[in-house]
């Protein structure tokens, strides 16, 4: 991919061009975006404050739907967190060069998305201060956590994923922070000096760094695939119709990568403009991201179709009733929104012209993110609302507080992301240099 990129910049332009945004002032739209994110965050904090003050009942959850938008948000954000490590680790092992221009932003997205996701089980507990009860810690009652519960598997999976993603991201940042350290003065130099861990760029450091980075990528690769598989078991391990199905792990992983890639695109395009990085994140790199989005969209569409087919073919009355209900019942709006956003609109990306049309591609990726949120909503709510016993059926719609928390989570995520873009290099400079033409005195002969 990057072999065919026409670079109008050289290796010598990289540090200057990328760190200009960190050292100087970004485009005014950056501040507008930050204010917008902080406003959403304030809405979320207000919602959470009300829940803590008055109780979890404010969130509109009641029999039979005890998992509402909070779990929808949790699964959505874990899904968003998938593309980062996929792009960093899996594409690194496959030597996909285009990842070098967007891996940093994707990793940052992963870290902040997983932090956001981790908030929702705590919020859902109501008494957030008892969150540590989910950990296997010695206590006076000698009551250990239930190691056979998928919810505990989640605790381990998400915390491991967050830790490993954070380490992967930070180790990738170290050489770039060292570059930044050598350019700034005063207090900034002190802070970046600590964060750069004394990196000097000597070959011994690079030698161990490269080996370690490879091992981290190798360890992260199965982790990416396992995390959303484990999240899917929150549902698949239950006997609830519509949930108890073996297709869930690969279906969830494909959906996660779809939403993650779409979110990477939605984040990279505006920041590329705000920090004037068009010379480093080329349109070819963005196009490659869209190709991955298209691929995962087709996998997701196939999974949707197979789910329906199996529900019908199995002859299981309850399973088929749930699926018919999803398409034609009270939640059909969510179902069709998800289908169109995740399976139909992305088909436009088959056109090369559209892949290179950034505004249109932005809209498609935005719709995919909406569709993926609705997919999780559809899975969580429709199965819970109408299970085996018609006598226990109910209906659920998100309350105002639920919506506050959902929008607040976007505010929380975007605030962290925007702070990151201002204080750290948005593009991995040391890795970007590897896909640019090498600084050679003698022109290569081949």
């Amino acid at each position, binding site marked *: 991919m990057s072999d065919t990129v026409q670079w109008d910049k050289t290796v010598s332009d990289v540090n200057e061009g990328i760190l200009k945004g960190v050292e100087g002032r970004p485009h005014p739209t950056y501040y507008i975006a930050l204010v917008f994110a902080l406003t959403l965050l304030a809405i979320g904090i207000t919602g959470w404050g009300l829940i803590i003050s008055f109780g979890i009942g404010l969130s509109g959850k009641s029999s039979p739907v005890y998992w509402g938008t909070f779990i929808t948000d949790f699964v959505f954000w874990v899904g968003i967190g998938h593309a980062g490590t996929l792009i960093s680790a899996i594409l690194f092992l496959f030597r996909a060069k285009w990842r070098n221009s967007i891996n940093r932003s994707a990793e940052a997205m992963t870290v902040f998305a997983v932090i956001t996701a981790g908030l929702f089980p705590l919020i859902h507990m109501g008494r957030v201060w008892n969150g540590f009860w989910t950990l296997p810690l010695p206590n006076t009652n000698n009551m250990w956590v239930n190691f056979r519960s998928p919810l505990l598997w989640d605790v381990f999976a998400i915390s491991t994923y967050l830790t490993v993603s954070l380490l992967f991201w930070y180790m990738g940042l170290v050489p770039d922070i060292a570059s930044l350290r050598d350019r700034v003065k005063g207090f900034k130099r002190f802070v970046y000096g600590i964060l750069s861990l004394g990196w000097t760029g*000597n*070959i*011994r450091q690079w030698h161990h760094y490269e080996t370690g980075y490879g091992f981290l990528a190798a360890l992260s690769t*199965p982790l990416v695939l396992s995390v959303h598989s484990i999240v899917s078991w929150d549902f698949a391990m239950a006997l609830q119709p519509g949930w108890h199905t073996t297709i869930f792990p690969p279906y969830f992983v494909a959906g996660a990568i779809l939403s993650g890639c779409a979110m990477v695109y939605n984040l990279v395009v505006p920041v590329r403009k705000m920090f004037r990085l068009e010379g480093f994140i080329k349109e070819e790199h963005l196009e490659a991201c869209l190709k991955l989005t298209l691929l995962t969209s087709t996998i997701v569409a196939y999974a949707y179709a197979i789910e329906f087919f199996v529900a019908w073919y199995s002859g299981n009355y309850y399973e088929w009733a749930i699926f018919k209900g999803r398409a034609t019942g009270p939640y059909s709006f969510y179902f069709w929104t998800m289908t169109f956003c995740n399976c139909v609109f992305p088909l436009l990306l088959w056109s090369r012209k559209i892949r290179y049309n950034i505004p249109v591609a932005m809209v498609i990726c935005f719709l995919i993110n909406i569709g993926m949120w609705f997919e999780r909503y559809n899975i969580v709510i429709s199965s819970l609302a109408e299970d085996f016993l018609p006598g226990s059926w109910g209906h659920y719609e998100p309350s105002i507080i639920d919506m506050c928390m959902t929008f607040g989570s976007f505010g929380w995520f975007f605030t962290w992301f925007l702070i990151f873009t201002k204080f750290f290099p948005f593009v991995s400079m040391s890795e970007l240099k590897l896909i640019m033409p090498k*600084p050679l005195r003698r022109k290569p002969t081949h």
Partner: protein
Amino acid sequence: MTTKTAGILALFDYLDDVEAALETIKGRPEFKDHILYSHTSYHELVHHAEERYGPSQVRWFTLTGALTGATTGFWLPILCDLDFPLIVGGKTPAFSSLPPNVIFIFELFVLFGALATILGMLWLGRLGNPHARILDNRLMDDKFGIFVPGARVDGEEASLLKSQGAFEIKKTS
């Protein structure tokens, strides 16, 4: 590198010049302790490091961490189950189911493996040193450097590096 030894730093613009210089100085006793600097991990230079220092020992850190994690993941649920005081679902206390434990074995395998890898990178790369010596700011930008401890700017080592394409030789103390 943390060395405070005085010497010279030869700065290069081009990757092929540095490669040629490294070939030239290979095996020469006066360059025995040279240190190469680069702004990124070009394969050619990392290969040079592998020849000089041997394969990175980070792998042993990873293996040790991963195996420790897997062992912890295996025993943690079992020991907690053994310690559980209540009868749950009619099953006797100390009932432990192995299939779900595979998840903990896997997660801690990855977690401890990753943590140990980072420790290995930090330890072997001599990172975490707040007093690290920065020889030249351009080394993190777009230049390559070869530091030769004990050499002088007007010495033979400097002339040799200059002849290999170094655009600047500077004294470091």
